[in-house]
């Protein structure tokens, strides 16, 4: 097990370095000479000052040396400086990361639980109206643009019914503490997390339904039936456990999309996470910040995949032995 984890860590490290290298070249492809931009921000764009800045930040060195400097910097949590926000990129991101983690994790749990539950239900009633209803709903969720669903949710539940807050992380100026604050954040979380989860709910539902139906055709299920086991027990212990394997794999792969989707959800709901930060960086053409957020979201995906890989070995004993 330890050997496996170490191997996976090694692989993740290699991908991380590859992402950083990509990031580095993208920064260089970004419009505008960084030294000229810095000089412009400082309000003194004469040639001598620019040359001085270039030397100071190592921009006059060969590209590969610069890549080395960049990689070393990232290892020390230095993701560059945001000249627009007047703060190091890493600080800006760290500040916003908890809100995004809260949002994506909640959306992940909601979509996985509701998606598999709906999938199991549909597979148990193949061809009946409840199966048709669930499958149609999944098809609709699958085709709905995430940001549009978010806007419509605001319109319906926040503006029209006034049931839930559709804006921000908590009630501004309320100064709640302790449990009251958690409750307040929870209320603000419902709409963004649900809309972010909709698409993934549809994905898990379809996967679970198909997988349940496939497993239920296998021989060991027939054996269990022949032994006279109750169909509820067969569903839970025999079919469900095996049918979940592909769903877990898929969930790990989908985690990346969840971070991407957060950019849209956080933009609509003014949720103060790194997705919203990415939108702000876009609006201001703040490339250092933009690529910093990109790197962190890619790193989040790697961590997520690593966790699923390890989880997978617990869910499926066959892999552990092999």
């Amino acid at each position, binding site marked *: 097990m330890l050997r496996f984890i170490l191997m996976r860590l090694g692989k993740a490290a290699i991908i991380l370095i590859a*992402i950083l290298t990509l990031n580095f070249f*993208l920064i260089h492809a970004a*419009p505008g000479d960084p030294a000229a931009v810095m000089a412009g921000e400082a309000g003194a764009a004469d040639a001598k000052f620019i040359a001085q800045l270039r030397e100071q930040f190592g921009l006059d060195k060969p590209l590969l040396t610069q890549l080395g400097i960049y990689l070393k910097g990232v290892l020390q949590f230095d993701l560059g400086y945001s000249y627009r926000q007047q703060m190091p990129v890493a600080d800006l991101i760290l500040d916003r990361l908890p809100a995004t983690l809260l949002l994506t994790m909640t959306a992940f749990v909601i979509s996985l639980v509701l998606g598999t539950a709906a999938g199991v239900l549909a597979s148990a009633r193949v061809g009946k109206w409840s199966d048709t209803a669930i499958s149609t709903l999944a098809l*609709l969720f699958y*085709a709905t643009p995430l940001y549009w669903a978010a806007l419509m949710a605001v319109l319906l539940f926040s503006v029209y019914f006034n049931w839930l807050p559709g804006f921000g992380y908590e009630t501004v100026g309320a100064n709640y503490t302790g449990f009251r604050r958690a409750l307040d954040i929870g209320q603000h979380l419902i709409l963004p997390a649900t809309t972010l989860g909709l698409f993934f709910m549809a994905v898990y539902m379809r996967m679970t339904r198909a997988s349940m*139906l496939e497993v239920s055709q296998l021989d060991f299920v027939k054996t269990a039936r022949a032994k006279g086991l109750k169909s509820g027990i067969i569903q839970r212990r025999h079919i469900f456990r095996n049918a979940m394997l592909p769903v877990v794999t898929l969930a790990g792969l989908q985690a990346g999309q969840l971070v991407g989707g957060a950019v849209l959800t956080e933009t609509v709901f003014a949720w103060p996470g790194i997705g919203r930060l990415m939108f702000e960086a876009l609006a201001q053409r703040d490339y250092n910040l933009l*690529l910093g957020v990109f790197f962190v979201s*890619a790193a989040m995906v790697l961590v997520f*995949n690593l966790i699923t890989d390890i989880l997978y070995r617990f869910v499926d004993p066959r892999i552990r032995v092999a």
Partner: protein
Amino acid sequence: MADFWKRFSRNRGAVIGLAILAIVVLVAILAPLLFPQSPWRMVQRPFLPPFAMDQYPLGTDALGRNVISGLAYGAQVSLLVGLVSTVAALLIGIPIGALAGYFGGWADDALMRFTEFFQTVPSFALAIVLVAIFEPSIQSIIAAIAIVSWPPVARLVRGEVLSLRSREYVEAAILSGQTSLTIILRQVLPNTISPIIVLASLMVATAILLESSLSFLGLGDPNLMSWGYMIGAARTVIRQAWWLSFFPGVAILLTVLALNLIGEGLNDALNPRLARRGK
């Protein structure tokens, strides 16, 4: 062909999807005839609600532009981006998958690690970064979508080629002295067409969603009216004018839904053996 159509039309959803898509395509083609004026032109007072004037059935936006005209021109952008970026993704994914599957060994290893890398990187975030850095334009949007959507193609083609490679007729072709390139192009790839077509139809749907999401964030081509842009521009005025974000969203939803339904129908028609499983 008649057989194909019989199997396709047995899937009722697929026929509905095809009908919806046909309407969208028609509207896109006829847009310049139906609405000779540019969709950017201000034609009425701002925030005219829908169904108030016959001439502007879906109302006007914050600048008094005709919403229904924007929808018609937006269909052009969505379909164009969906189609071209999918073709581009196929042009990247098919060769990579075919080479990896056919040659195996270190070539396979290297190409698949490369593919895996692109699958790990969060695709939407990468698309955002690419379009932002290379400046939003229809070309950069299409390129970015193609770059983030080819990996599933490569994996699919590799798997198919891997299983076809050891068939007798391929071995016979090798013995007859055909070059690897000829074998891949003439013997192997034609047999992988069906699953590629099914995947491609779903990719067009995803590409349309991606394009609209980019435009929503302000990364659309500034010279082209698109559905995502319309919703993005209406975001801040949603409390006053719900219709500005509602109708373009419905257009995206219907188009993407139609393509997904068609994909399922194609799957039934092209892989009849698989389709019956679980039904």
